[in-house]
Structure formats: C-alpha cells, structure tokens
C-alpha cells in the first residue's frame, strides 16, 4: 500500500492506516526529535505529541508526494521540539559582538557514519545544537531561526559559528582533522 492510499484511509479514520504510517515514520522522526532534545524519554513524548497533531490535522493536508508528506511530519516534530525547548527557556542567549565566519568542512563529516555525526551533534550545548540543526540540517535561514527561537539574527549566527568550532574540536579529538587542503 503506498502512502497516498494510506493518507486517504487515515483521513477516513482507519486505525490500521494510522498504525502503518506510524510504523513507517516513527523511527526516523524519533531521531529527529533526539537531535534537538537530548533525553530519549522527552524525545519519545515529543514524537508522540507530533504524531497526535499530525493525525488531528491530516484533514487539511493534501498529498502531493512522499517527500512532501515526510517534510510535513518532520516540520510538526521540529516545532514540537522547539516549543519544548522554549518552555524550558534555553534560548536566553547573549549576542556576541562579532560572529566569526567559520566554515565546517563537510568532507570531514561525510567520512563519518550517521551514528557518529548524530553523537557529535547531541554533545553540543543546547543553544549551539538547536541553531546548528536548524541552519545546517534543516536549511532554515538565520532570519527565520531568530524569529523561531526569539533571538536576534546576530545571536543565531554567533551560535552557529561556535557550534562549528566546537564540532571541529570534537573531530580533532577523534583524530579527524583538516590539514592544508587534505583531510586526515
């Protein structure tokens, strides 16, 4: 059964179709939540909330493709995570005067497995981690991140720079670093 049919059945109120959708996406969505929220229990709860909202609002969703469906559910999950973090008031970030323009060598990260990248990101402090996730992985511009987190654009940029510096340090500790155009 493809996703379009599943969505149609979910809209009609089929529990079996809901279960199929849940089984299809819950694993990936749980790890998305865990990228934002360190605690597995909190991440599980947020995923549950996200699915609940998804099933409640599925009537307004019009299926145009698998990628769009996944993007929509992912957006719901990320919003849940950001709401959770905002409630915990973790975004009381102080803006730095100058945000260094630090670029992260993506070749270094490509050499890592998904689990290794995940573990590196999870080790970042919550402010760095959130901005890094939103900007580098989700591709949200700084202006929108600032609006989402209730911080200034400069703060978002500085947080990203610091997160990259920290990641490079972590990579260096792992023995993965960039030496004069070559990665070792």
């Amino acid at each position, binding site marked *: 059964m493809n996703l379009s049919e599943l969505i149609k059945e979910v809209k009609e109120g089929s529990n079996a179709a809901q279960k199929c959708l849940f089984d299809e996406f*819950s*694993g990936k969505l749980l*790890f998305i939540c865990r990228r934002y929220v360190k605690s597995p229990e909190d991440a599980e709860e947020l995923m549950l909330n996200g*699915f609940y909202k998804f099933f409640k609002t599925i009537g307004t969703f019009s299926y145009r493709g698998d990628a769009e469906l996944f993007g929509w559910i992912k957006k719901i999950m990320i919003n849940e995570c950001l709401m959770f973090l905002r409630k915990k008031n973790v975004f009381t970030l102080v803006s730095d005067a100058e945000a260094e323009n630090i670029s992260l060598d993506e070749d270094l990260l*490509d050499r*890592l497995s998904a689990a290794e990248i*995940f573990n590196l990101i999870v080790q970042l402090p919550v402010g760095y981690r959130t901005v890094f996730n939103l900007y580098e992985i989700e591709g949200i511009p700084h202006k929108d991140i600032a609006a989402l987190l209730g911080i200034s654009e400069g703060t978002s940029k500085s947080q990203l720079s610091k997160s990259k510096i920290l990641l490079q340090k972590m990579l260096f500790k792992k023995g993965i670093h960039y030496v004069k155009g070559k990665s070792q």
Partner: protein
Amino acid sequence: MSKENLNNTSNWKAKLDALDNLPGDTAYDKNDVWEKLHARLGDNRRDTIKAWYWVAAACIFFALLIPLFYSDSNNHHAANSALNEHQSSIKIPSGDKDDKAPVTNLTVAGNERKFPAASSKTITKMIHENAKENIRLSHTVSPTSLMTPTESNFTAPLDTLSSLANTQPEIKKLKVVHINELGDPVETLPEIVKNSDKHAFQFKIASQETYINPATASNTNGFTILKIKTSQN
C-alpha cells in the same frame, strides 16, 4: 554570514535524515508508543462526543430559557413605558413660586397630610389629575405590568401620590346659602318634639290647684300663663 547555501544537500545530511536506530542504543518499544498514541486519539474521540452532548444540552437549555426571557422582558418594557408615560404626564404647574416644589415633598405621615410648598388649590388640582391618569392607565395597562417595576426607586414618590389620590374622597361642592334663607330653626322643629315637650305641672297655691301648660306658654312669647282651677268648695 553571507554565504547561506540552503539548498546544498550534503551526503552527511542525507545520512542523518535516514538514521532510524543507533548501534548499542536501546531500541524504543514501538508498540508501546503506538498504544499510548492510540489511547490518546481514542480519548479525544470520546471527549469530542462528550463535548457534543454538552453543546446539545446547552442548546436545549437556552431554547427553554428564550421564551421565559422574552416574556419577562416584554412585561418589563410595558411597565417601563407605562411608568414613563405616567411620569411625563405628571406636571406641577409653574405659575406660583410656591407651586414649584417637587412632587416628592408630598408626604403622608400617619393620618396627617403635609403639602409643604404647594397651595391647597394646586394640590387638589394635581390630585384630581392624578386620579384621572390612574383611571386611564388602569384601562390601558394590565395591573401585573404595573406591579413589576416597584423595585426601582424612582417609582416610590409616584406610588405615594397615586395612593394619596386614591384615598382622597371626592369633594362635593355644596350650595352656598345665606343663613337668613334657612329660616327660624325653632319654627321648623318637627311636631313630635313639641308633643314630647308638653308637660303639665301641677301645684297648689293657697289651697287652689294651679298648673302650667308649656304649649300654651310658647305661644305667648315668654309669658307664663297660670291657670287656676277653683275648687268646688
């Protein structure tokens, strides 16, 4: 940060998105999470049904309340309009300075009636007008509608005035007659009185029997006539 390559999809990002388990990490119980989610969705459906029942009950309640509310408001409006009309119709004449006293000064304390500022003529006129107005209102407005607005304070003086008007007896104009036209009250006394006063007094003077008859005495304008009856001896 000028360079924002938002559409750049790196290899590591795709790998991260596809991640659905970690080596060495305790896998979460998918079925348990699903049960929780399913229960929450089911609770919500039950809550929705319950909410609809409440909405229906509230609708029925309001539907029952509407007729009661309208009947009350109609009565209230009728009474208010009647009272307003009544209030506007009562006007104190503004001719004399004394007559400018407010109606609220009219008080009834026990049996004593006080009309402090208005002359008796004006008050009598007002009472008559008020009585007429009351008669007119009793024809146009039902008694229940007049009973309702007694809660409001401004109706108290009106009620006092109207009760005053109701208790005031109608003054009949008597014909003014000069006292001379009435004649002598003694002459018009009824006959029965005269007869009742007819007493005869008997006494003896020098062994002669004497008696006085008042009927005959009145005819002689104050002179008492003594009749002497001589004895046969």
